């Protein structure tokens, strides 16, 4: 067991480091390894690396990591392997906030371009509060089925709001669509600063509940009997996961598949124990999105594909392969 855990962490970390290096070095301009510390021989490469590529890679990594760890936590909490960070409607809230910003051309003085992620986070927060309140009104014990159904109801409603704005819009159509397809390009360091506190708090909230998630796999009642304060823990996990999802969607748009596939792959390779699953999903989610972003900007260079398309193209076959292999081996 110990050996396997060590292998899991070391291989995941190696993949992450390699992904980061590939992410910063490949592109229209070559950036050699030495540029990391040497800013004199090739000043333009240095500025590309630190000014453009590094923040882009880090943002992709943070978004991927957030979506993956939130997905792992939501799947565990809802005991549903088909759950993902978008199940509870939080991302739809963020999308409505962001799309509304574009649609109404909202602006607040001194905030400039940050207005979009800011409204995105507000939207995510409002959606989360609404879903939780509504679920609690229906069923005070907040059963998992109630939560999932409430999330589905709110997601479809908010989705219709987005469709409505798309239908009514004229010149902003392209902007809205490209935001909805998701991207981490041209964001820069300020976006990282904006998302980082939410990521840190969200990850801590989830990580503190890793053993409780293990207990809750056996049902709320069994978890309660094991001494888990189910209601409080559930709120903490929901808050942490929603915070991560909202932050990720607000800065990058809706990037699908990461939150679903990464926890699955991690669980199949290294087991369902949340004490490791959360951290490993976090690392692997970062690697996956960094690679996907790399592909999205290089495959038809100089044009860029939406990153969500790449995550689906890479994620689906890999997922199918591993799934198939696992079933064959165990069955």
């Amino acid at each position: 067991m110990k050996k396997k855990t060590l292998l899991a962490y070391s291989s995941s970390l190696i993949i992450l480091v390699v992904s980061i290096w590939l992410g910063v070095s490949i592109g229209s301009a070559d950036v050699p390894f030495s540029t990391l510390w040497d800013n004199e021989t090739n000043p333009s490469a240095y500025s590309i690396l630190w000014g453009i590529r590094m923040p882009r890679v880090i943002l992709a990594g943070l978004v991927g990591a957030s979506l993956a760890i939130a997905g792992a936590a939501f799947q565990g909490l809802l005991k549903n392997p088909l759950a993902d960070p978008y199940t509870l409607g939080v991302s739809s809230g963020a999308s409505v906030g962001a799309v509304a910003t574009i649609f109404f051309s909202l602006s607040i003085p001194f905030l400039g371009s940050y207005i979009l992620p800011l409204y995105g986070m507000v939207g995510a927060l409002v959606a989360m509060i609404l879903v939780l309140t509504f679920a609690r009104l229906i069923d005070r014990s907040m059963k998992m089925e109630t939560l999932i159904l409430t999330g589905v109801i709110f997601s479809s409603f908010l989705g219709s709001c987005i469709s409505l704005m798309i239908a009514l819009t004229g010149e902003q159509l392209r902007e809205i669509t490209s935001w909805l397809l998701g991207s981490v390009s041209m964001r820069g360091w300020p976006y990282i600063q904006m998302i980082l506190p939410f990521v840190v708090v969200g990850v801590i909230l989830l990580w503190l509940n890793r053993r409780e998630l293990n207990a809750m796999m056996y049902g709320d009642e069994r978890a309660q009997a094991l001494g888990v304060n189910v209601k409080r823990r559930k709120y903490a996990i929901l808050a942490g996961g929603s915070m991560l999802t909202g932050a990720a969607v607000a800065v990058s748009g809706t990037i699908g598949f990461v939150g679903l596939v990464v926890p699955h792959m991690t669980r199949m390779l290294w087991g369902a124990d949340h004490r490791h699953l959360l951290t490993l999903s976090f690392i692997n989610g970062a690697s996956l999105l960094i690679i996907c972003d790399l592909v999205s900007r290089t495959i038809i260079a100089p044009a860029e594909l939406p990153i969500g398309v790449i995550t689906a193209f890479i994620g689906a076959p890999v997922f199918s392969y591993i799934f198939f292999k696992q079933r064959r081996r165990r069955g």
Partner: protein
Amino acid sequence: MLEVQNISGGYGSTPVLSNISFQVAKGKMVGILGPNGCGKSTLLKVISGLINPTFGTITIDGVDIKKYSARDLAKKMTILPQLHATAFSSTVYDTVAIGRYPHQSGFFSTWGDEDERAVKKAMVQTGIEKYENQYLEYLSGGEQQRVFIAQALAQASNLLLLDEPTNHLDIAHQRQILDMIRKEVTENQLTVVSVFHDINLAALYCDEILLLESGKVKNYGAPHEVLLEEQIKEVYHTRISIQAHPEQPKPQMTILPDLPEQTEEKLITTNHFKIQEEYVEFKSHFPLRVLSSAVHNAGMGWYTTFMNRTVKPEYDIDNVKEEYLQYLVSKGFSPTNTVGMMTAVDSKRAVMKNYETSFGKVFIVVTAGVGNAIDVSKSYKRDNFFHIGTINTWVIINGKLSDEAFVQAMMTATESKSKALQHEKIYDLYSNTIATGTPTDSLLIAATQNGKLMQYGGPITEVGQVIGRGVFEATVEAIQTYRKGDII
């Protein structure tokens, strides 16, 4: 250990339970019984603290459960709910290890030696250590259930609440799991409160039974105090019959179905009897209730055919069970549906008599060999050497007898046989006193169980009178026939 006081409440506003009180001592196993929807599972959830009662208190070791923190309560008591399906696979070891949750705390909770020992012990207790690294979903239902019980045992709380722990399992797994739980109760003073669907399992394994009816306690006590025919009928609306368990001092019940009366006539006539070359046979077209001391299928049961077989004096008695079975099969009898006897007397010397009574005809068939007659009061003076000679008696009644009447009929028939021996002046050649029978006599009482129930079968009842007279007359005649044979 556990004290439940005046509990009322349930889900939402409609109370499921009303005013339930009972106590469970340490090291006891209590079964909760009751029809579907009577509040069994709700009561279990209230005891475990999953649902708050509207009235009443639950105390464990003298402390109200509300005063415990979730973790401390989990160290005192645990509940294993009915469904445990997990969406994600984990190994047996990991599943059992979850049971240690309440014993770990802190930011970086560490897995100690004590945790490891508890997990290992629980796996040994439940016999799942060989599956340690296997994934749960590849185990059978019974094995999975044992894993979950191991998880609860690893939690090391003294009170275990179970909700139908053997639901959907075959009898092998039912026995395994309940034996195992019972062992923990008896040897390690575990206290168990479990909901049961199966009344017999509850009676067999529990020290006490709590019978619920519509959320109220109907009865609480030892299985033999609670499993009463009338009471079960009242609560479950089902007629039952209670018998003793063959091995354990516990009552067991059988459902009495309310089936439509069969239109087929259940009547025994002389045509059902035939005397063949090697045996006397009785073949009916429906099963009769039989109490007998026979070679094959002795005891109480339902049988359609009887055989009284003639064997040679040199017959090898050592292998009689197997040989008799093969003989039945070779003659076209169903071994599971036949009561078989043996005699050295020629089947043609069987005496058959029938008597008309108010309830129906009674048939008596006797074969008598008295070469080894014995006075039972002097038999202790004899050796145990096997001798030839036996009296086989069949009493077949067109009527319905109670169990009591069956036993009384056997007594009546036996007494009557002894009287016949006395009348014929058959002597025990060793003690030189009047014989009472032979060492190998067999008796069979069979009844069609049709018609009015006869509660008693003693000498002054009508059935007793006819048995007394019939067995006497038939036996006297059979002895006389036997003697004639001797002369010839």
